[in-house]
């Protein structure tokens, strides 16, 4: 992953690079569209789907309004259950807490199931520097980890990898026979490789899908069972979560678990939905509550509802831009539309390009199981970024000029006439490599008169002009 301190190319540049292999873009797009279609079919099996979305959205709304109380309730319940609760204001502090727990356990090898929060905090890099080896146990995450890459999708971490490439990767790292790219075979090889890690790791880190204030339990959803195997074979369970993962009551899970997997992959539910309430006898359990900018976002009216996100990835699968630019073009742990509204809150300068990596088509908002107004927030972020001076000079100069013309009807008429004359007379002015429109598209044909001119000629006699 590009380290947070280094400059990086913007989304448009990275997307352009991704688009140099058009066949691969087609493959990427179709794979994700297939998942979007599975999501549609799953949603359509439930006539009450839209009611579920509305209910989920309202529950999360209530959580955000009263997060303070719910956090205290959750902490008290978790402690009563024998769980140690930690609070981390920043990513750095989160990493330190996790490191300290691992040190206390006296181990240097640990397993971790999927957690976007630890990606956000760059936990693996941090622990690696401290001499601790983290093995990601979700198959997709293990694949990108072996490749030295961040996940490109929050639910489908290696959706950008072809099976032949994975075969080659496994050949190099796991010693599988060269040229074998059979998913069944490769999964079997990973199973054997990771089973050994599960059997020997005494610390297991998991993410958290939902944390119930009423009961102090945390719920972790996987298809592979990797979170469960890790936790049930370890002496120490560390569950890392953003503070917004709280839900008020256990029964709310009945809503969220109906929505989560259907939205994510079109499955009726994930294979495992495990509710960790107390540690096993002889085991210790830690929950790390992480802020890292969330409380600040909670105070911004336009953006607080982004905290409703349950990380299903549906907005990525449906996003026509994500499907054709790939997760890595977003240069942030969470890609796609939701990433584009979460990232700038953490670092406006670094992520100023992301809210512009969208056509504002609105499909993301429609698939969101908690009804986050993603496309409206993208629009709002653009306003904030432009006002704060994070939108490029050329765009600004051009649009300032445009605004001046459009505010003055007479100037508008004049420049329209002049503009069309130029387009007609000197097409080379526009039809060159510097014009990004013209690179792969023809310019519109220039009519001999504008509608205003036509109207003056043809309708003025009706006296309809003011």
């Amino acid at each position: 992953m590009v380290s947070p301190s280094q400059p990086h190319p913007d989304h448009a540049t990275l997307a352009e690079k991704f688009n140099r292999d058009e066949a691969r873009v087609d493959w990427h797009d179709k794979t994700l569209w297939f998942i979007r279609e599975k999501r549609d079919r799953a949603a359509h099996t439930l006539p009450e789907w839209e009611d579920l979305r509305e209910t989920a959205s309202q529950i999360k709304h209530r959580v955000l309004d009263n997060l303070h109380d719910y956090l205290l309730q959750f902490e008290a319940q978790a402690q009563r259950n024998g769980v140690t609760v930690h609070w981390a204001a920043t990513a750095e502090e989160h990493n330190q807490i996790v490191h300290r727990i691992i040190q206390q356990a006296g181990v240097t090898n640990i397993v971790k199931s999927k957690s976007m929060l630890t990606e956000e905090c760059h936990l693996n890099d941090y622990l690696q520097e401290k001499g601790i080896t983290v093995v990601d146990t979700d198959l997709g995450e293990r694949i990108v980890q072996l490749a030295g890459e961040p996940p490109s999708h929050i639910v489908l971490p290696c959706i950008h990898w072809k099976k032949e490439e994975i075969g080659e990767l496994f050949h190099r790292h796991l010693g599988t026979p060269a040229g074998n790219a059979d998913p069944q075979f490769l999964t079997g090889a990973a199973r054997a490789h990771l089973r050994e890690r599960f059997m020997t790791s005494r610390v297991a880190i998991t993410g958290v899908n939902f944390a119930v204030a009423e009961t102090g339990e945390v719920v972790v959803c996987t298809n592979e069972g990797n979170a469960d195997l890790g936790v049930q074979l370890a002496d120490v369970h560390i569950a890392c979560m953003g503070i917004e993962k709280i839900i008020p009551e256990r029964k709310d899970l009945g809503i969220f678990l109906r929505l989560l997997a259907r939205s994510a992959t079109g499955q009726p539910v994930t294979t495992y939905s495990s509710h960790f309430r107390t540690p096993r006898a002889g085991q210790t359990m830690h929950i790390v509550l992480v802020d890292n900018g969330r409380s600040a976002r909670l105070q911004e009216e336009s953006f607080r509802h982004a905290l409703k996100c349950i990380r299903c990835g549906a907005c990525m699968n449906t996003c026509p831009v994500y499907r054709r630019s790939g997760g890595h073009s977003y240069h942030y742990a969470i890609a796609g539309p939701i990433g584009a509204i979460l990232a700038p809150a953490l670092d406006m300068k670094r992520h100023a390009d992301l809210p512009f990596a969208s056509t504002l088509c609105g499909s993301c908002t429609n698939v969101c199981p908690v009804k986050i107004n993603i496309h409206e927030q993208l629009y709002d972020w653009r306003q904030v970024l432009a006002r704060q001076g994070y939108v490029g000079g050329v765009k600004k100069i051009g649009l300032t000029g445009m605004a001046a013309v459009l505010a003055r009807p007479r100037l508008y008429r004049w420049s329209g006439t002049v503009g069309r004359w130029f387009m007609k007379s000197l097409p080379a002015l526009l039809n060159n490599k510097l014009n990004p429109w013209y690179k792969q598209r023809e310019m519109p044909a220039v009519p001999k008169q504008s509608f205003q001119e036509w109207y003056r000629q043809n309708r003025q006699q009706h006296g309809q002009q003011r």
Partner: protein
Amino acid sequence: MKVALFVPCYVDQFYPQVAIATLEVLEKQGVTVVYPARQTCCGQPMANSGFEHLATGCNENFVENFADCDYIVSPSGSCVLHIKDHLHVESAEEKAASIRRRTYELVEFLTDIVQVKTLTSRFPHRVGLHQSCHGQRGLKLSQMSELVAPPFSKTGQLLGLVEGLELVQLNRADECCGFGGTFCVAEEAVSVKMGKDRVADHEAQGAAFITGNDMSCLMHLEGILRRQNSPMKVVHVAEILNAW
């Protein structure tokens, strides 16, 4: 019923025939149409790029032009949505609010206000309907494929009244074409790829024309079609409704 015609700036400059068709379709339905001559633009180009605050002059001009009529009708879902969602003028907020309520996209005006039941138009061709996102998801001109809700299509309803027109079914009913305002040049690679895929879907269904409620999307698709020397053409829905 007095209707003021709002012609988006790029339609005025590049596609006058679409504005003429809009005017004539409305007149055929017995609607009195005026054209406020000092109009320019809805301000969306600035706002979608983050410079909503630069659109003040443009917005004031819009309010001055359109304060005095029953309805404002425009052949663009995108510009109409922008007006409805974002037209604000500090010194004339009441007028702006009233304009936001009274502004309609052409098709929804015909189906919802005029309540058109018959048309005298003929367009004997295979046509694909590109649902422009702002009209569809913003103005709800048709049901959205993401939602679990009964299907409808205001544009489809009108096209169904056109003699000889054969509407094709697309593989992806409401995928974005990739125009996206300044997105089309700022994210040129993805924009063009989206457009090519949209064109390919229509091609696969054997459409001779791509129609839609927004000329901006169609301009983008037309640019791609012409570069590919494709025989397929774009035509605004107003032109079809006005065709005979």
